[in-house]
């Protein structure tokens, strides 16, 4: 298995946007893309944390609009492919048209892991235009391997070139990752990508388990910059893959400057594992809720851990911030 080729999809400018409440600016996007391109990263994903068309009161208003973000990134990514994240029901087909117009190369069409049939139409729409399309299964800890295979098979039938499994709550452990990735890899015959979060300190380990089980693309971010306690740290995972002898277009030494740039110009606080991140991880809540849960619990003066428990009992999926607000207001009024 060693000596196979691994591609790196850098989502620092998309998942990282969650970490700064979607306030990445044009200069940061331009400079980071230039550096990532120079370092040889395969794919650079850019946008609002929740993807195209997601800038909103519910999810946070982005500092820079989608079109500007993508245009700036496109100008600065000469060899790296430019990627976007898109969730049907959040973004519109007109947003996809805009991205096609700007010259986005990789389209990642996402749904909650049990609802993949909502992605069929946009996948077919983009494949008809000859684009590279991945089907993304969000919150993949909420379905077993068999169900994930069923959902992924539907995306493949709709035309997806590959499947991305996202551990959006940072809930998974390496044994579970190996099982799920193996099942998809052995049964689908298309590229599998893995996207980890670090709530339990397992993002790098989970990414290695994914590659050893057949994944060929790994999502990672500079210094782990991403929602909640962040993602797989790009520099670290590349160093490990080098030691294991995997082939990559990117070398660890080329990431040193990018890491230093990001440290002094983009990342206001380096992601670490706070108690709230472990709490959301344990409860299987979307990791991006960490900051919002903190804000809302302090605004309404309610206990943060009680709030997490109540949200977990309502089985929230990703992008349900409005329910967090409603639950906190109910708690503040003493409604059971």
């Amino acid at each position, binding site marked *: 298995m060693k000596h196979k080729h691994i591609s790196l999809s850098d989502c620092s400018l998309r998942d990282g946007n969650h970490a700064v409440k979607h306030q990445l600016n044009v200069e940061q996007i331009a400079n980071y893309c230039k550096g990532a391109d120079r370092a040889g990263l395969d794919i650079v994903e850019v946008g609002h944390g929740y993807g195209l068309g997601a800038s*909103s009161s519910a999810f946070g208003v982005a500092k820079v609009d989608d079109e500007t973000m993508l245009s700036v990134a496109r100008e600065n990514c000469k060899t790296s492919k430019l990627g976007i994240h898109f969730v049907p029901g959040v973004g519109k087909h007109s947003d996809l048209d805009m991205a096609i117009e700007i010259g986005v190369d990789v389209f990642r069409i996402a749904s909650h892991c049990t609802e993949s049939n909502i992605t069929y139409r946009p996948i077919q729409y983009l494949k008809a235009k000859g684009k590279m399309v991945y089907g993304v299964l969000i919150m993949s800890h909420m379905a077993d391997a068999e169900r994930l295979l069923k959902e992924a098979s539907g995306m493949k039938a709709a035309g997806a070139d590959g499947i991305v499994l996202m551990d959006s709550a940072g809930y998974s452990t390496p044994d579970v990752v190996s099982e799920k990735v193996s099942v998809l890899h052995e049964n689908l015959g298309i590229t599998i990508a893995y996207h980890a979060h670090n709530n339990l300190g397992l993002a790098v380990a989970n990414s290695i388990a994914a590659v050893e089980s057949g994944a060929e693309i790994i999502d990672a971010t500079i210094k782990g910059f991403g929602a909640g306690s962040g993602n797989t740290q790009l520099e670290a995972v590349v160093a490990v893959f080098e030691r294991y002898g995997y082939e990559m277009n990117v070398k660890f030494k080329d990431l040193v400057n990018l890491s230093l740039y990001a440290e002094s110009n983009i990342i206001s606080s380096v992601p670490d594992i706070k108690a709230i991140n472990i709490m959301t991880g344990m409860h299987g809540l979307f990791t991006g809720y960490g900051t919002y849960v903190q804000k809302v619990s302090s605004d309404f003066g309610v206990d943060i851990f009680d709030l997490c428990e109540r949200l977990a009992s309502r089985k929230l*999926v990703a992008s349900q911030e409005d329910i967090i607000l*409603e639950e906190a207001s109910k708690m503040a009024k003493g409604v059971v």
Partner: protein
Amino acid sequence: MSNRVAIIGTGSIGMDLMCKTISSKGLDLRFVVGRRSDSPGMKEAMLRGVATSSEGISYLEDNIEEFDIVFDATSANSHVEHDRVFSKHNKFVVDLTPAKIGELCVPVINMESLKDSRNINLITCGGQASLPLAYALKNSCEKVMYVEVISSISSDSAGIATRENLNEYVETTEFALKKFTDAEASKAILNINPAVPQVCMQTTLYARCEKVDIERLENNVNNVVKKVKEYVPGYNLVLEPLVDSGSVTLAVQVYGSGDYLPEYSGNLDIINSAAIAVAKFKSKVSAFGSRAVTIEEGLV
């Protein structure tokens, strides 16, 4: 006579409409038509003693003088075909598909002004849930600049048509939000949640506006919620308006009546209940001729 109803489409929406029409005092259900005589909906209709036909639109055309109001619960493409027939015979139709060829209607906002319209479109479930709130807000401030609506529905209440038409759902809801509030910009988001037991529909409205009169907003919201409750008893305010300078946030939960569909399907119930409200109103307008029928009379 002006209250005779026909339903075209025997899926879950058509069946729920059938149950609601049967139990509506003012309405008289005449036909349920579809395309397959062995469909579960058709069997259900026969079981309840309703006259059925698998000849669909051609049966309705052959019997065009036998009904006054038709609910179209098929698909957008089919509705375009069907409306050629309805239009030829000047037949009143309530369209539950996303075809959008008729006038957009939310009963508590504009039903009275549409009494002469022949084709009424009910927008989307998120539209029916949020537009009453958006309209209450518009009447409580100087100007709505931006309005956004996020709805969560249970996976089991989201059929294939909903899933394939998410883009149309978002576009139609955003269009209606602007139309009914005069906002410059709008945004709609739909979330599908697979939790079991199923979550009921919940809709949150966020807005930015100029000079909100908080007391007036609270009154207007309470009044409109009360009015919607007349046709959707499970429509409840769960987040009273939070006002922070020009930003307003409020939310409702929508439980269905459980007529044919489970109670958690508030999203399907609210659009069907709106259809019944429109039909009752129309039958009264026709019965009383030119005398103005108020919205309260229409809803009863």
